[in-house]
């Protein structure tokens, strides 16, 4: 009669293994950025200190997000390095005047209105509070695309259980809400959805 718990346990174990280990690998597709862009190297070599020097605000208060190729061209109009990425940048994007098809880790869907101006300029939040200190590292992260929802993994956060995640990890609505609750800022649906 010890057979039944054994078989049951086996099913349980297989399910747990599949759910926790295999499932996240299947759910997310790994994509590489078109270029190996290193934040730290750029900061050191060009003397850029502020994020907003490249990730700028426009005059009407909107946030430009990832800078356009024009900003890259300012320094890289000709090859200034020997790496493959440098060659790709100059040959594939700068010379034809084409925008780099960056994969945006923090991209929210069309129904979300996230005003950087309100958070950064009015509430004076640091970029790293939401975007992690990625801008200070030399890491080139792999972009993970959720096959079902089409979202970047950063929206859910690196932990599949969403337990024990760092404050900057996760960009789901509940994360926004948590932060708002902590800071006692109340907004209705209209405040963040368009």
């Amino acid at each position, binding site marked *: *009669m010890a057979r039944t718990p054994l078989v049951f346990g086996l099913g349980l174990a297989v399910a747990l293994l599949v759910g926790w280990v295999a499932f996240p690998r299947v759910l997310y597709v790994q994509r590489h950025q078109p270029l190996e862009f290193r934040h730290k190297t750029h900061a050191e070599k060009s003397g850029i200190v502020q994020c907003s020097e490249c990730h700028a605000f426009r005059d009407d208060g909107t946030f430009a997000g990832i800078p356009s190729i024009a900003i890259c061209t300012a320094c890289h109009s000709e090859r200034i390095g020997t790496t493959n990425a440098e060659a790709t940048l100059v040959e594939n994007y700068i010379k034809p005047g084409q925008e780099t098809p960056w994969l945006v880790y923090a991209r929210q869907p069309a129904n979300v209105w996230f005003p950087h101006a309100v958070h950064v300029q009015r509430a004076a939040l640091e970029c790293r509070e939401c975007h992690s200190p990625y801008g200070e590292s030399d890491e080139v992260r792999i972009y993970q695309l959720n096959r079902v929802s089409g979202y970047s993994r950063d929206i859910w956060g690196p932990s599949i259980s969403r337990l024990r995640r760092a404050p900057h990890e996760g960009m789901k*609505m*509940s994360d926004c*809400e*948590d932060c708002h609750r902590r800071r006692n800022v109340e907004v209705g649906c209209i405040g963040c959805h368009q």
Partner: protein
Amino acid sequence: MFPGIDGFHWSLGHVLFLSLFFAVALTILVTVVSALWRTARDFRAHRAIELCWRSAFAELPDTERRCRHELSGRVISRTCANGFDCRQCSKHSQFAVLPARGIVRDLGLNYPADRFYHRGHTWVRLEADGTLTIGLDELAEHLIGSPDFIKVPGVGSEIENNETAWRIEKNGTVIRVRAPIEGTVVGVGGPLEGRYLKIRPRRNPQDPATLRHLLRGAEVHGWLSRELERLQLQLRAPNTPPSLADGGVLVSGLMDAVPDADWNTVLADTFLEG
């Protein structure tokens, strides 16, 4: 739904509503889990077989649940309430003192007097070495004839009273034969050996109480005549009146001889399927 989820309010109505919901959900969950747990407990405590038999017994037609003392004529009418387990019957000893009214008569079947008979048409014979031999009685053998396939339990396995002891396959139908008594299987046989199982009983075979629930002697006749009567009713050709109870001797291999009968019912009634 939970604090921290968008739309949760710490308002009285909201909390009350959700509390009620969780209470209901919890009640349902507890009900299911406790039913499961009780099921598992029954199996652990070996009550499951008993429960199954009780349930099957409850499903039997009234005619199949007659008390042995009614069959033997000691009482006019009585339905068994103990699943044929006279060892648990408080009334059994009272009936035993009543004189038997029936006369033992040859029904053309061989029911040796040294055997004890179970209502599921098995017999038990006490051997000298303290083991019990179990076989299918003559009526059942006549019914089935030569089986297509039999499946007996392995040596060393435990069987419980009224649990399926072995299975007989005949013309695509699986017949589950109920065990007449509990014990450990020490030997197996088949129709050719004249016995199906040899078991070591769990209780002391010398104690009369061990085999008290089985029919023996004069009781067998009353029971058998009722069974034969039922069979005749069930096996007659459609739209013919029932023939008399003494309508001759049973042929062997009735299932082959009368293939159009409602064998489902016949076998279920005969082997106490429930």
